[in-house]
């Protein structure tokens, strides 16, 4: 069992910090699905994120919740550097500190949801799809191997580069909820003025303490960890 948790009010929301046991890891294409005991943490709203302790690193790493099975939290991790590699090599029985849920998730009050994800941007989609009753989804990947991650979202349409997700967007009006690389989000921004987009930035703290994660919103530098990561395009 994981040791006791502590609750914290961060940016007016309840979050908890607890040392959680790793219950398992499995490869998903080039990514790793990390399963943690849920402990006393709330899964939160789809699109919110958690700060995961990265073994032997100075700073934790922000990760979107991928799935919320009973008594577990899972995260889909792309090993692109030292922190994510350390997380992907965790073994069952090891434990890491986790803080969350953090930030603004997706607004689920939408009429015609369509989920759009590129690459590791698929990470928050399984939990989001479950909350919205498996709406239509389109996924784009760099290679066939990356596309294996599509199995986490059964029924989704999948394209592999050079084809792009934007080609698959329905022409009739819909509510886009998206996560992925910046070029994809920028493309959607013009295509779907009211899309809800989950952005990324390097984060040191994840709860508003460091001002490291700012992005420009309406000409002002705002903290993505507090005002995002999900932003309404128009906003």
């Amino acid at each position: 069992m994981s040791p006791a948790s502590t609750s914290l009010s961060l940016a007016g929301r309840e979050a908890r910090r607890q040392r959680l046991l790793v219950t398992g890891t499995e490869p998903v294409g080039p990514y790793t699905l990390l399963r943690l005991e849920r402990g006393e943490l709330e899964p939160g709203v789809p699109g919110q994120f958690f700060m995961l302790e990265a073994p032997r690193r100075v700073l934790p790493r922000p990760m979107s919740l991928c799935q919320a099975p009973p008594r577990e939290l899972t995260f889909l991790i792309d090993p692109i550097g030292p922190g994510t590699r350390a997380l992907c090599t965790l073994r069952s029985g090891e434990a890491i500190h986790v803080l969350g849920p953090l930030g603004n998730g997706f607004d689920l009050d939408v009429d015609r949801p369509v989920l759009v994800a590129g690459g590791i941007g698929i990470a928050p989609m399984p939990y989001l799809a479950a909350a919205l009753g498996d709406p239509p989804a389109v996924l784009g990947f760099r290679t066939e191997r990356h596309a294996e991650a599509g199995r986490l979202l059964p029924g989704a349409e999948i394209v592999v580069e050079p084809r792009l997700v934007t080609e698959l967007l329905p022409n009739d009006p819909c509510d886009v909820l998206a996560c992925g690389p910046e070029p994809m989000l920028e493309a959607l921004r013009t295509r779907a003025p009211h899309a809800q987009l989950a952005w990324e930035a390097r984060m040191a703290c994840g709860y508003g303490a460091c001002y490291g994660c700012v992005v420009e919103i309406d000409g002002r530098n705002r903290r993505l960890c507090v005002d995002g990561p999900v932003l309404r395009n128009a906003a």
Partner: protein
Amino acid sequence: MTVQLLNASGCLDALVAPGIAIQLDAFVTKTVTPQAREGNPPPRIVETESGMLNSIGLQNPGIDAFVEEILPRITELGVPIWVSVGGFSAPDYAEVCERLDGQAAVEVIELNLSCPNVEEAPETAAELVAAARAATTKPLYAKLSPATWDVAESARAVAGAGADGLSLVNTIRGLALNPTTRRPNLPRGAGGYSGPALRPIALACVHACARAVALPIVGMGGVTSGDDVLDFLAAGASAVALGTILFSDPLAPSRIRAELSDTGVPAVVVSRHGIHGFVRNSASRHVLSSE
């Protein structure tokens, strides 16, 4: 003797995390400048093997918005408030200190004389302290950089200019490159290096200054544990501030107090005898007032 724990300036937002701020003996604000600043363009942070680099660039709402909108709200927390003051010239420091002088809620003014991420003022640290001294009667803590050959000399200079205490240390300039492009990982090139790697440097500065001047010292730089706190006290600090550790462990203040309450306090006294031959009670006057 209980150990006084503060946050390091720029490492905690009391309005976003009030539950953490109230665990501190004093809350230190992010540096406030005369005008509002948007700060530096992102990315602003990068991790290194045993520390991190930041290039925030003193993003803050400016002294007017601070006094009108922020100060009243953090005052409600009931934690003693230290305001960190920055600027680009002696008149800047004087202006901000003057505005704060009338604010009863402000217990201490910390002068950030050493931010590595913005252009520096033309005046020396001592001249900036003198300008601030003329503008306020509040206790002034001079925050010094470790990037100097003889920090004790700087300490004597700011003490002579009227500083009531020292905050040691600020970050030191560091550079990291993107392993793929081999370009600097931060747009401005260098950033401020903080975290565990800074600790031996910070301890050396505290140790040197504690011998050079009789002022109380807030020690900081890579503190992660109660053990680290005892090192800073042994080196001559009268209080300790937590910075980078708050990013990975927002609960560090309570954890560290617990670590200290186990074996801490006797060790502190012993150790400070070990270093100074006596316990510098005077050293804690401003911070102890928060008890």
